[in-house]
């Protein structure tokens, strides 16, 4: 009994350590990225939105959900609250998306020494978060402005801008500040950082399915929830009069936005899970 209590306490303090480490580092990284001047043309930022490699590297090294969760929370605490960019309930969506993207990245890596896996993990982790975020952004502006359709040219301009923004983000933040530094940092930190926290370095683990079914289902539910909450907060619909008023105002199409995003997530995760499984099957056949 006493033994199990100490065991949980040891685990708790390790979790606490990981959480604080990931939170301070990703918060700092975000703050630095905010401070670095960027060339901004309205919503399109030709700059660094974050040094995304910091949370990516940590989540790949530790493969822990708390590390993934710490990154968006660090961003909120350090950068958003202090600089006054806290988006209210909209941050909820960011927490879910970024946590999922990072956790996905950590799970995708089975062998820390494999460069290919690192590249894929970094791209998927960032790409997922950014793509879902862009879609939600388009939806937000689309619905946030009354009679948007009445203003010719505005819907197209918003979609065009957000699309370009996504591409720019993906190249600058995702590749230059995501993939490349990840490739530099992971081999250098592996086996050095973990002992400092009293944690065993990750071992090569081929047998594991990258995405257990529970995670997939959880992800889909989380995305539906997150997107819906984000939309509610952005539109300010009256929850009590949900059905009657809401659909009249925004049309039936709205409901497809969260469902569509969720479906996309489901498809991606299933494809990834399937790949993992076929590889597993092959490995077991050969073995």
């Amino acid at each position: 009994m006493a033994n199990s209590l100490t065991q949980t306490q040891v685990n708790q303090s390790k979790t606490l350590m990981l959480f604080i480490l990931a939170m301070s580092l990703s918060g700092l990284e975000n703050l630095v990225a905010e401070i670095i001047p960027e060339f901004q043309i309205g919503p399109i930022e030709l700059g660094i939105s974050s040094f995304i490699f910091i949370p990516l590297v940590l989540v790949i090294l530790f493969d822990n959900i708390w590390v993934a969760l710490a990154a968006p929370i660090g961003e909120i605490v350090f950068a958003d609250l202090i600089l006054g960019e806290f988006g209210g309930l909209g941050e909820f969506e960011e927490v879910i998306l970024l946590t999922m993207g990072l956790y996905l990245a950590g799970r995708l890596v089975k062998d820390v020494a494999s460069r290919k896996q690192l590249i894929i993990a970094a791209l998927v982790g960032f790409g997922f978060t950014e793509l879902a975020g862009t879609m939600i952004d388009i939806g937000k502006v689309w619905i946030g402005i009354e009679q948007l359709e009445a203003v010719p040219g505005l819907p197209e301009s918003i979609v065009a801008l957000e699309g370009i923004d996504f591409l720019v983000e993906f190249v600058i933040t995702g590749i230059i500040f995501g993939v490349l530094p990840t490739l530099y940092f992971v081999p250098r930190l592996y086996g050095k950082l973990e002992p400092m926290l009293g944690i065993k370095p990750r071992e090569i683990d081929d047998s594991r399915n990258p995405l257990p079914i529970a995670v997939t289902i959880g992800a889909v539910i989380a995305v539906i929830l997150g997107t819906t909450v984000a939309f509610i907060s952005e539109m300010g619909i009256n929850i009590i009069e949900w059905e009657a008023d809401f659909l009249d105002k925004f049309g039936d199409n709205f409901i497809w936005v969260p469902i569509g995003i969720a479906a996309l997530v489901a498809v991606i995760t299933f494809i990834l899970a399937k790949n993992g499984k076929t590889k597993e099957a092959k490995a077991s056949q050969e073995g």
Partner: protein
Amino acid sequence: MENIMKRLNKISVENIKLEIMRTTFGNRDTFLSQLDPRVLMFWYLIFAIFPWFIYDKIVLVALLAFVTFIAAISKVSKVIIFLLCFGIASEIICYGIVAYFLGGGLEAFLALIGLTMKLATISLASIAIFGNIDPERLSDALLSWGVPGQITFAVSFGYRMVPVLIEEYNNIINSFRLRGKSPEHKGFLYWRQLLHMLKIAIYAFYPLIFNTAKRTRTTVEALEVRGFSYALQNKEVKKLKLAYLKIRLKDIAFLAGSVSYVIFLMIIVK
């Protein structure tokens, strides 16, 4: 133009560090900082959600004015306000220009002003509130709402750590620059110089990660020595820790006053 350049020159890393230091450690004597943190967060929630319900421009202007007043009496940092205004202005102008080329004209511009006012109201409310809550009080408020103790501790710890970490990062970058050799040819549009700086900015995280890991471990060990994890699970300890949080008449008056102002606005418009 000269005036703008002067202002821009004021924004340096050193200055921002000072501003952040002031935001996280200063502002203890303002009106808002004396209120109960739970009331403040609740107030913020009202002003973060409510603007989205409103499409009437007059109400939005009145709300924005009210929040601006609150921000003004709570001594919000000027640099942060400047950054906020700059961002909002450039965003409006850009959407306007693109919409104009795609055939929207002035109407598109007007349609966006409502949205921008909503965003500005929410941002100002957030700056006023979170610049004035003491980090410990913020984390205690979260704890009293049932957020896990690990997270609330991390929040207040993080708040305190920011200036230290920025200082350290800045020092590492400076020593990199002292020891390193910057490129001889600047290149077209200084791209070599920029690349050099960005590389340093990335490499500087390497020692920082180890330093932070070491510091984190020391902190957590110190916490555990004093029974932090154990205390988290103990209801008595939590009660004792949160005993000082009391909602007083001042808090109720502030909240009631704000809410009645909003209701008053709604009635007048209707």
